[in-house]
């Protein structure tokens, strides 16, 4: 028997040091107070619309649709948000909440740098201090984003421990939070960690599926047949799925990073290769060995290079409501190039994982069916890395 608070089926919970317990309880109380507060929601909506540029477009990808010859394809353009990804949706919500709680300092982890940039942006706007933890390996893969964060006034701390990637950045941000709680809010970037984070982040990201639903009803007068999103921790995926969970006719498909393939050790596809465990504050699926040691996962995408998945996804997988497929580096890079050439849209390499699966799925669907792919971020940050992947010598 375990704590039922913050559970998604058997997943979730609050597996954190005692030192942080009052901090998460305080956060939960503040969130419950503000989430239905009209004043708070007015302020947040104003920021989302007039600062971040919401609602984001639901774009009919006509050339791609014709080229693939199957389902009608729409792209949910989270890449057009201010700061270039869906991360800003959650960050504005959490930063505003932190400010209401009297916090003056935001800390965050980041993988690809998108969440770090979004947090640094919100901190600049709201006049808060900001420290971002980023795996040293990722500071190299995403050097431009490191500069953007610094430009926005944030301190970026390269994390050298473990695999020096996203998981280590999360661990280090958690360690930092236990050492400084009074003035500091940990602005977690995905639907993971201890309760109430998976719920808070999901609620702030649910705007994606709320808009898709409204826009789809306006454009097509019906719901889509499938919604696809890339899935690391799973924040853009849960945001894209959430308002469709009770619409059983809508297939929900999370695209995980298979890295060099799910049959190799160089993969980050958690649902496809992981097993049940407890880590980073939550019970969920994790890539790990037989003794529960967390695996050093790999993906070309720094944002999906994480050994776990949010607890609500783990539950959606258990009950069969959502499907989780694995997409390799090669397939993602092909899709990155394909969307650039076909639609003139350069997607983040993370989002390219969803595009890659769509390229397989769309031709197998009927022409009167509709698919939505969430383009969670823009790919400018990835251009140098993809060029190097293709063997071109390029310097940022």
């Amino acid at each position, binding site marked *: *028997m*375990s*704590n039922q*608070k913050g559970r998604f089926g058997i997943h979730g*919970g*609050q*597996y*954190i*040091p*005692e*030192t*942080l*317990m*009052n*901090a998460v309880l305080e956060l939960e109380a503040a969130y419950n107070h503000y989430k239905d507060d009209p004043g708070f929601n007015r302020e947040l909506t104003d920021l989302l619309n007039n600062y971040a540029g919401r609602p984001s477009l639901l774009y009919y990808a006509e050339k791609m649709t014709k080229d693939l010859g199957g389902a009608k394809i729409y792209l949910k353009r989270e890449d057009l948000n201010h700061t270039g990804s869906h991360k800003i949706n959650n960050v504005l919500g959490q930063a505003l909440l932190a400010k209401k709680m009297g916090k003056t300092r935001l800390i965050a982890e980041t993988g690809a740098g998108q969440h770090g940039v979004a947090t640094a942006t919100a901190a600049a706007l709201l006049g808060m201090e900001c420290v971002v933890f980023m795996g040293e390996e990722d500071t190299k893969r995403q050097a431009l984003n490191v500069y953007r964060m610094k430009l926005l006034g944030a301190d970026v701390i390269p994390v050298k*421990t*473990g695999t020096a990637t996203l*998981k*280590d950045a999360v*661990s280090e941000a*958690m*360690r930092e939070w*236990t*050492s*400084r*709680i009074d003035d500091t809010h940990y602005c977690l970037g995905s639907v993971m960690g201890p309760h109430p984070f998976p719920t808070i982040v999901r609620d702030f990201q649910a705007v994606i599926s709320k808009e898709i639903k409204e826009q789809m009803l306006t454009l097509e007068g019906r719901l889509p047949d499938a919604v696809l999103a890339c899935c690391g921790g799973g924040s853009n995926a849960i945001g894209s799925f959430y308002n469709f969970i009770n619409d059983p006719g809508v297939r929900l498909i999370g695209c995980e990073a298979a890295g060099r393939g799910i049959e190799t050790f160089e993969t980050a596809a958690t649902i496809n290769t992981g*097993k*049940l*465990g*407890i*880590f*980073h*504050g939550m019970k969920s699926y*994790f890539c*790990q060995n*037989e*003794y*529960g*040691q*967390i695996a050093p996962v790999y993906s070309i995408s720094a944002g999906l290079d994480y050994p776990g998945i949010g607890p609500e996804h783990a539950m959606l997988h258990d009950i069969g409501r959502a499907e989780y497929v694995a997409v390799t580096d090669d397939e993602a890079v092909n899709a990155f190039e394909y969307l650039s050439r076909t639609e003139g849209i350069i997607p983040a390499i993370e989002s390219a994982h969803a595009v890659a699966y769509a390229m397989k799925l769309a031709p197998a669907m009927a022409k009167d069916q509709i698919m939505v792919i969430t383009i969670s971020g823009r790919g400018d940050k990835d251009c140098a890395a993809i060029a190097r992947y293709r063997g071109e010598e390029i310097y940022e």
Partner: protein
Amino acid sequence: MSKIKSAFENGKAFIPFVTCGDPDAETTEAIIREMERNGADLVEIGIPFSDPTAEGPVIQEANIRALAAGITTDKVFDVVTNLRSGADAVKIPLVFMTYANVVFSYGAERFFARCKEVGIDGVILPDVPYEEKEEFAVPARKSGIDFISLIAPTSQDRIGTIAADAEGFVYIVSSLGVTGVRDSITTDIGALSRSIKANTSIPCAVGFGISTPEQAAAAAKHADGAIVGSAIMRLIAANGKQSAPVVGAYVKSMKDALRGL
């Protein structure tokens, strides 16, 4: 009654910590024997975890070295089996300190049953707070293993509930942050200890940040014992397979500082 109580019957308890398998299992065994010989009242044995989020850099690195050298949960159980057997068997209470996923992946029932079998008296899981403890404390109790609770400087109104339900001893986290040597400890340990003792009769020991005999004596003045981890792992990092006598001398100096308090 729990055997852990006996660790607190010899004046203020000195509780050293060691990461099992750093630099190798044989050295850990030798270190624990030296610890007992030099006055340790209870030893905390760390089962390494790949991503120890409650640890500072010193113990993180010890974990990584131990895993790289091939230690596993089963091999840690073997070390305890060796320690508890033969003419020179270790008699003092031994507790494990590890992370939830190490126990969960082994199967909690199976893990605690193995603990009982090899002679472990208690288990500390720093990433399992009061709200989540039943999942572990219930199978632990079934095997007669104490599930040890931690209380932090931020616990405030939670102290009563946690202390009233605590087993073995209460682990007082001296400071905010992670494990590691600190120049000074600013938390009012006396006040924490009084709140705890108002709710339980089991002993309490202070850990996090203690490295010198003076710090140990100051911390133990208000509690029943002092716990030291990072300072020891630093000695082991520096002395490798020759660590046992060095750690033994250190343990003696720390226990001496606690005598007569």
